[in-house]
């Protein structure tokens, strides 16, 4: 791929910002527009930007599909824990903590489910990007 300094410079700044934004959107999802799915897509978009600017090699070193499998396990586990505690499958509860610095933290257990969705979306999309991109590379050479 032709190297474009402009694209690379912009990407260096934009990718971390986009990832931060996606985390923010993920975090606020329970109360405001956002959530795991959208945030996952956004993070994948950041990943795609990175791929375009820096090529596939570094991104392809990581097996992205593992991320989606971890996400699936996370989602299933968040549903199974209430079952073991005597409740029904996927019966989410709201946890309240008092943490030293953050004060009262309000954490629905569904957040872990949402985290699973985030990881699955990110992992699956990145798998597709990387694999399709590698395919193209094969074609050229």
């Amino acid at each position, binding site marked *: 791929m032709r190297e474009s300094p402009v694209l690379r410079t912009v990407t260096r700044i934009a990718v971390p910002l986009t990832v931060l934004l996606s985390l923010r*959107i993920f975090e606020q*999802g*329970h*109360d*405001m*527009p*956002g*959530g*795991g*799915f*959208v945030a996952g*897509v*956004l993070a*994948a*978009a950041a990943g*795609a930007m990175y791929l375009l600017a820096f090529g596939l090699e570094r991104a392809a070193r990581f097996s*992205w*599909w593992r991320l*989606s*499998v971890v*996400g*699936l396990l996370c*989602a*299933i586990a968040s*549903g199974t824990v209430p*079952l073991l505690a*005597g*409740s*029904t*499958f*996927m019966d*989410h509860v*709201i946890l309240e903590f008092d943490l030293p610095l953050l004060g009262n933290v*309000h954490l*629905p257990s*569904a*957040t872990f*489910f*949402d985290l*699973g*969705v985030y990881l*699955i*979306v990110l*992992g*699956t*999309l990145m*798998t*597709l*990007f990387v*694999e*399709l*991109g*590698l*395919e*193209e590379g*094969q*074609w050229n050479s």
Partner: protein
Amino acid sequence: MSALTTVVVAPFIGAFLIALLGRTLGRWSALVMVGAAVTSLCAALPLIGAESPALVSHAWIPSLGVTFGLRADAFAAFFSILIAGIGVLVGVYSLGYGTVGLGNARIGRYYAALSAFMGAMLGIAVADDLILLFIFWEVTSLTSYLLIGFWYEREAAREGAVTALLVTAMGGLAMLAGFVLIGLATGTFLLSEIVADDARRAALVASPAFVPALLLVLAGAFTKSAQFPFHFWLPAAMVAPTAISTYLHSATMVKAGLFLLARVTPLFAASIVWPLVVVPVGLATLFLGAWQSFRETDLKALLAYSTVATLGLVTLAYGLRAPEQDVLQILSHATYKGTLFMVAGIVEHATGTRDLRELGGLRRMLPISFALCLLGVLSMGGLPPLFGFVAKEALYGSLLDSAMLGPQPLLHGFVITVVVAANAFLLASGLKLLIGVFLGSAPAERQHAAHTAHEAHGESPLLWLPPAVLALGALGLGLLSATGTSGELVNALSSDPNAEVAVSLFPAHLGPLVLSLVTIGLGTLIYRSRVRVEAMQQRLDRLPDARAVWDALLARVTRFAEAYSAWWQDGSLRWYFSAMLLFTTAVSFFALEARGVSIADAGIGFQNLGWESVCLAALIIMSTIAVVRSDTRLGAALALTASGFLVALVYAVYRSPDILLTQILIETVSTIVILLVLYFMPTFRKDGLSPGQSAWNAVVSGLFGFAMFVFVILCTSPGFRETRNLGQDYLARSLGEAGGRNAVNVIIVDFRAMDTIGEVTVLVVVGLCAYGLLRARRAEG
């Protein structure tokens, strides 16, 4: 965690631990598995003396009436102890068997599957909810597939595993259908409630689904317990390691079908259909199993067919409405058959073969195994003072007094004759095994090999202790019958709460004793004239074999699937899209039709329409035209993206930020994907379309567009909506019940989390498939 939950959960925890640590532990994973089995055993033992059945009930899928319900009555406790107890023995035996030359990871997987299998079997034993029972049932099918196929390098192992899986899983699905019918007819999936409630049972009997439900549940039981005509999977599964054959194919899994028969006896047995189906199947299985067993020269095949015979025998007892026999027969069979399987394993371990024609004279080399085998064969043949004798006496007694067969002397005589003949064949194959392996002298060529290549394998205590426990069980239970202890035990544990089987070492009546003597005499005669009997069996070989019928069926199904796929999925994207769009069109119109919505109901007006919407609509139409008119793929893709972003603007105008955000991101990402795959698309054949194809495209897209237009307009009309406003409902509940103000997200992750789980699972699978397919393609090219 209650004791009852521990019984089921401990082996699964063991399996999980082994799966994590198996690579490091290697063969010592056996200790984890044995530990789990001992835990289950200890938890199950107190259940047996409990006043009332232990209960566990967790809500699981309340909307479907499915609970995580466990219940341990005496019969369930008996089964659990049998499973966990033999699990301990099999774990120890596996450790002694020591699969040489395999990697730690593989041995770890073996014990993980074995432990999970044990947990699922225990789950079947104590499940009260039918759906839960079905799930455990299928888990045993899956884990047994892994275990049978342990030596997956061998073609036969793979085939045996697939056959077993297909047959038992097919039966399991039939059983699920039967369970659903039962649940619909009675209004509950809890077995204990159905059994306890006369009204529910009457509802089931009166329901038109009664006979289908009966047949479907029987299909599940028959496939699992290798009843004729599904018996062929069991001998094919003998390619498994011997410890597995002992555990799955003699002591536990094949008994799951019998267990199911016991459980549904109170539901179905009063019907005339029950004996009409179950008795012939049991009888045929009994006789064919015994007959075939005598023919085999492979030790494990011989034992497998004799197991088939016993399974048929117990099925017959259920068919004759004599469920009180079950624990007696099952216990007797588990003790001697477990012994014999393990002895067969020792013999194979010591000599490297299990072909009777190559064995002989091993009594000096394997003295302990010889003694154990002797006990096992005596019990199998029904000779005093072993438990097998007592069990057979009791069975003959109940056959002679059968209230069901009594009024029909011809039938009565026939059943008794078949049972006696089958038992005689079983005795004969027992003798064949015992004498063939341990007495006489070894064939010359084996003698040599036995003393060179395999000298190192003697009888290690780890190998002979487990069968010794079982063999002594067979002997001890037999001797205890003299005092009546065994009788009390089997009656207390039976699935029939009113069981009163007369179990005694000393024959009280003449009838059963005469039948026993006839059996022994006939069995010895068959063994002595084995050459002639075998010649006769060879001549009868013309009958079609169930295995061949099954193979032909599978081949037929495969051919149909191939032809169907080639016709339906011909690889043309145009055809796929036409099919999908037409189907969606049809479904939309069907939904509108079913609701009885007419165009007059449409709640549409132009009062809310602002100038910005009109402009946006015009732009969307223009970009859509650009998609269609574009001369290049890239142009079409970009125009498509443009129309997507314009739609996003519509959401902005109507203030729905959530969908707006999603739409923008999805448009971005799908554009990237389109650009990535664009390269591989065939050249744009826009001008190459025949007039017919163009017309077809126009018709399909016109229909689809019209359908969507009508559907979107009408589905906002009052007639289409539920009386309850779902949206308001979710909004009201979202903060209070799920702690979130964003109702859309709360619906996704909480209210409809089950749907989401399904969707994201599909997403993961799609990702993995794309990964696998593309990698494989690159590796090829």
